[in-house]
Each structure stands twice: as structure tokens, then as C-alpha cells.
């Protein structure tokens, strides 16, 4: 799984790159991204943004690359954001590490302890982070958080345990990119058991357990869980889901009561997709991987052609 494009949307709003010359034009309806540009340091760019008179209105901030490719963790940048809490009273959305494949392999992005941000911004509603490398979260208690997104190439068991042990009464959107052991995933299905067995996150509407090489096992566990009855959107996209997992979901009538099932980038047969399509729900089953490799020969090209 590679991420080739920067975010265009976050927390339901359009993302724009921070440009000191333009300033904060629409701080309430846009999410601003600060991205290191090889010339000015990320911290200096933050200082300039904070000097903008509109910064007190800023709704959302995205931290893009904070230094040259895969160079050091963002501890200093996060400390600066923590310090800026009084200058950013309207901040509701924060994403750490919108870094794409050209800039760094996802598992090469060095993260750090991000929990001070959640403490510093008690009104934060949307929080996301990319890469689990060096990422620390700890069990968190946060009254306002609506959405929590952790995008990794391979999620560590500790992080899963921390999320399961967190107290997030307002959480509606939980999105974990589980990844593969090739990228350092150490989580096991057991780590997710509290989610399936207990009544964690009472307001949960969206559950995304994405980018997983155990997507079938996850589908099976969810299909047996009362959780399926209280969520509206189930997202098992970007993983290795095939007919086995899809059949398990199909067998539970609660699946038909979802608003949306997202399995895009999957390995299901056409027959299975046809069956899923009979459900009265929105289905995203695009980007089938089943026959992708069969086209391989057709992708070869001659040396001198352009």
C-alpha cells in the first residue's frame, strides 16, 4: 500500500497548503497544511502562521513533511504545537504526517509521542496520524474527540491496546490501518477483541479496520460481534478481503442495515460482489485486485516508445 497523494479533504473540509504570502483566507472552512519546502523550517512556517490575525479562527491544521525525507521525528514540532494551544483556540482538526510515497516510505516516517497534543487541545474533534514508527499514544481520555485515525504500514500491538484502553465518549469514527508484518505489524486479532466484545465507544458510527492482511479474520470477528448492529459504516478497504470474509458479513443480517460497506481494493469474486450488491446499502467494491496480476503481460512496454 502506497500513498501517492496528499490529502485533499480532512474533517469534511478542503485542504489547502499554507502560503505565507496568501495568509489564512478561510480559516473556518479550510484545513491548512504546513509542508516543509527545503528552505524555511517547519517551525518557522508555524510561527508565521500563528502571527496571522486569522489564526485564532483556525479550524484545522495538517502537518506535512516537517523536514527532508525521513529525517528525524517531529518532537520539536509537536512541542511547538502544544505551546501554541492558546493561540489556536478554534482548532478542531489536526493531522500529523501527511507525507506521501515520493517523500518517504510510510514505515520510514519517524513518529513520536503525540499524546501531549490531545491533552493540550481538549476541544479537538478530529485527530489523525500517519506511520506507526516510534508512535506513542498511551491510553487517552478525551471528551470531544469524534474521529481518531491511525494510518500505518504495520500497526504495533501496543498502539491497538492503547486505543482499546482509551476513554473516548464522543468517538464516532475509528480508523486503524493495520498493515502487514513486513512493515512491522505486531497486532493480533486478540488485541481488537475488546472492540468486538465490549461496548467501547458508545457513539461509534464508522469503523475502519483498513489495509489489513488479515481482513478475512477481521470480517469474521465483526460478523459475530454485536458491534455490527450499532455502526453505520464498515470500512475494510485496502486489505486482503476475499470471498471468505465477505461471505461471513453477508451471513449476518446486520450487514444489510449498514449505511455503507467499503471494501475497495479487495480480492472477492464477481459472484460475491453481485451478492453484496443485492444488499440495500451503499457498497464500494471498486479496485478489484483479483485479476490484476493477469494483466501483467499487457503492462509491458517496449523500450523506445515514448
Amino acid at each position, binding site marked *: 500500500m*502506497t500513498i*501517492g*497523494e*496528499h*490529502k*485533499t479533504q480532512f474533517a469534511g473540509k478542503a485542504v489547502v497548503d499554507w502560503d505565507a504570502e496568501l495568509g489564512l483566507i478561510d480559516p473556518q472552512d479550510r484545513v491548512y497544511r504546513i*509542508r*516543509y*519546502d*527545503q*528552505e*524555511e523550517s517547519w517551525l518557522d512556517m508555524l510561527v508565521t502562521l500563528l502571527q496571522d490575525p486569522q489564526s485564532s479562527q483556525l479550524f484545522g491544521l495538517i502537518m506535512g513533511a516537517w523536514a*527532508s*525525507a*525521513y529525517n528525524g521525528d517531529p518532537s520539536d514540532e509537536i512541542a511547538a504545537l502544544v505551546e501554541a494551544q492558546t493561540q489556536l483556540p478554534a482548532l478542531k482538526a489536526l493531522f500529523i504526517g501527511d507525507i*506521501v*510515497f*515520493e*517523500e*518517504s*516510505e510510510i*514505515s*520510514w516516517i519517524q513518529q513520536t509521542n503525540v499524546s501531549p497534543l490531545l491533552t493540550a487541545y481538549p476541544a479537538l474533534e478530529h485527530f489523525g496520524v500517519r506511520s506507526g514508527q516510534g508512535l506513542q499514544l498511551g491510553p487517552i481520555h478525551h471528551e470531544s474527540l469524534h474521529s481518531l485515525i491511525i494510518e500505518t504500514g504495520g500497526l504495533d500491538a501496543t498502539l491497538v491496546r492503547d486505543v482499546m484502553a482509551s476513554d473516548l465518549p464522543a468517538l464516532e469514527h475509528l480508523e486503524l490501518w493495520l498493515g502487514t508484518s*513486513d512493515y512491522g505489524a505486531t497486532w493480533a486479532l486478540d488485541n481488537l477483541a475488546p472492540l468486538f466484545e465490549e461496548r467501547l465507544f458508545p457513539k461509534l458510527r464508522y469503523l475502519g479496520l483498513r489495509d489489513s492482511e488479515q481482513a478475512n479474520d477481521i470480517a469474521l470477528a465483526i460478523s459475530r460481534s454485536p458491534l455490527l448492529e450499532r455502526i453505520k459504516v464498515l470500512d475494510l478497504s485496502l486489505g486482503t478481503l476475499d470471498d471468505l470474509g465477505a461471505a461471513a458479513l453477508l451471513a449476518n443480517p446486520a450487514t444489510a442495515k449498514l449505511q455503507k460497506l467499503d471494501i475497495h481494493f479487495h480480492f472477492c469474486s464477481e459472484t460475491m460482489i453481485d451478492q453484496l450488491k443485492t444488499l440495500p446499502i451503499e457498497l464500494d467494491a471498486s479496485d478489484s485486485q483479483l485479476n490484476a496480476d493477469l494483466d*501483467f*503481460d499487457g*503492462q*509491458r*512496454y*517496449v*523500450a*523506445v*516508445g*515514448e
Partner: protein
Amino acid sequence: MLDLVVIGSLGDRRIELLQGALAKLQLPPARLVSYSDLIAGKVDLRDLLTPTSLLRIESPGKSVESEHALLSLGANCEEPEACSYERIGQAALAAQPFEKGLILPSRQWYLGYCRILELIQQQAGQTMNHPAAIMTMFDKRACHALLESHALAVPPAIGPISCYDELLVQMRQRNWRQVFVKLAHGSSASGVVAFRMHKEQYQAITTVEMVRHQGQVRLYNTRRIQIYRNEGEIATLIDALCRHRVHVEQWLPRAFSGTRIFDLRLVVIAGQVQHVVVRQSAMPITNLHLLNPRGDLEAVMQAVGPGRWQAALETCQRAAALFPSLYMGIDLLFKPGFKQHAIIEMNAFGDLLPGVLYEGRDTYSSEILAALATSQVGAS
């Protein structure tokens, strides 16, 4: 009237586009000389060209016939360097069944191509593009060295390497963590690897698909970008490419346009940058034939700003002036922040940009008009 003679491959799209442009300008069609006939000695350009004729050299293109003929010619060429690169004998070549995408010995192809370009040079009168310029542009090492020696902005390069281990030594000496390894004589992103390392992890993003066949590694060009992460596999890949002769330069970070990285293909015609295409990609390799989308030129120009845009155009024009050809394609990147740019490729036949217009004309029309304006052709 203009009497244009074009060397190319029958049925190649470039020839069709050229003839289309001539027809639109109400000029007579170009007379085609095929590479195969030229290589076989079936034609002598001196018999075809009059003092007012103009010769245009096209890419041998996708023609399998031309590729085999040039490889066959190259089989008899001695290697001028004190290195031994991969070779294929004439018998083996004749027995080689056609396999789409298979990378054949590109150094041998180049030596054969140089021989035919020398022949063209001996036989030709006025040309739109010069054989010597084509030779240099089809040698990425020589081309990079030429630009660098004229203080033109290019990514820093590593000298000749013969294997993966040497690459690592060279990178570590410079404290570089990412490079592009390219076939010295490749085109169309054939044999291009974006290689990077982080701690003990390695990654090669490439247009090359490796296939093991009877204990040997075969390389194929693929539009489906491959990512190798196993160091042993990466070493096998780099070693195999090195046997073809490679050029290595630093992988510079590229600026984004919108959500994706981009670089530019600029066509310089008669000393001026004319047609420009923004090549966007989610991957480090941006060539358009890899199904990457064309980006928004206006948006890029606005983001870059007029002063820096002009500076980039001047770099291209200065680079073009080093080559005695009427036209060529230049690939140029901006670093993030747009303050710096660098030429990443010179393309002798970089004008195949169907549908891209400058002042209402495609590249072929612009080149023909420039040729008519600057030379003695068509005076009769």
C-alpha cells in the same frame, strides 16, 4: 517547396504526425527512409538528398525490426570503454523470439545506433537534428557531464559504477540516501530505478520487472511500477542494470502541484521553449506513457511565479544551445518551494506530444516552420 526526407520506422506514429503536420501546412509529404534499409545499405542518402533537401532523423520508435537491426549492427562494434557490457551475438539475436518489453543489451544497441548516426552524418546535408547531438543525448552519462561542465542545473551524479555494492559505497561516501539509477542508453523510462535507503531498509521503485528464467535474470519494461524491498533482489536488479551501463544521479525532491509531484517536459524549438507539458505522478517516475496524467500548466506557472519560471526556461534554452539540433525535449524538475530547478533528462526525440499546442501549432508544425525560417531549404 520543402523537400523533407525523414529517417524513421514505417508505421511509427511519429511519422504519421509529421506527415499530418506537413499536409496541414500544405507542404508535400516527407520521403521516408527506413532505418532497416539504411542499416542494410539498401539506400544511400546522397542519392536522395538534393542541395535544398532537409533531413530529419526520427526515433527508431517501437519498431522491433529497427531494434534488432541496430543490435545486430552493434554486435560488430568494439566496446570503446575498458568495461564489458552485456552483449548478444547475431546468431542468438536471430534466434531470440520477440518478447514485448524484454530489455535487450542497450549498450550494444547504442553502439549500433552510433554507427548508423555516423553514417547519416557522412551522407547528410542539411539536417533538422544533428547526429552528434542525438548520440550525446542517448548517453545519459555524457549528456549529464556536458550540462554540468556548462554550469547548468542538474542533479549531482555518481561516476561509473559496475554493481550494487559500489553504488552503496558511493552513496555512503556522499551521505546520500536516494538516487536514480538509469540505463545510460535507455529511453521512455526503460530501466529506471528510484532507489532509497533508511537505516537497514532498502527500496527500489522501478519500471523494471525481474523474471528468473533458467537461472538467469531477465528484465522487462513494465507500466505497472514495481517496488522491491528485499535487498538481495534490489542488488540483483542493480547488478543486472549495471551490465547494460548505467547513469546514477541524486534523487532530488520534487515540488508538488496540487496533491501530486510533478516535473515538466519542455520542447525547445529554434532556441525557444515552446510546448510544455506538466507530468504528474503519485510515483517517483513521471513519464506520461506510464499512464500518468498531464497536469495543469497554468496552475504550475502561477505557483512557480514569473521570475523563477523565466529562469527555468533560460536554463532549458542554454542547455539546448549546447546541441546543434533545431529541436529537443527537456525534462526539468522544480524542488519543493520552486526556488530551484534542475534538468533531469535531455531527449533527442522528445517532441512526441500529441495534442499539445503552442500558439495553435503542434510540435511538428512548429519545427517545420522553424526549419523553413532558419535554413536554406525550400528556396527553389
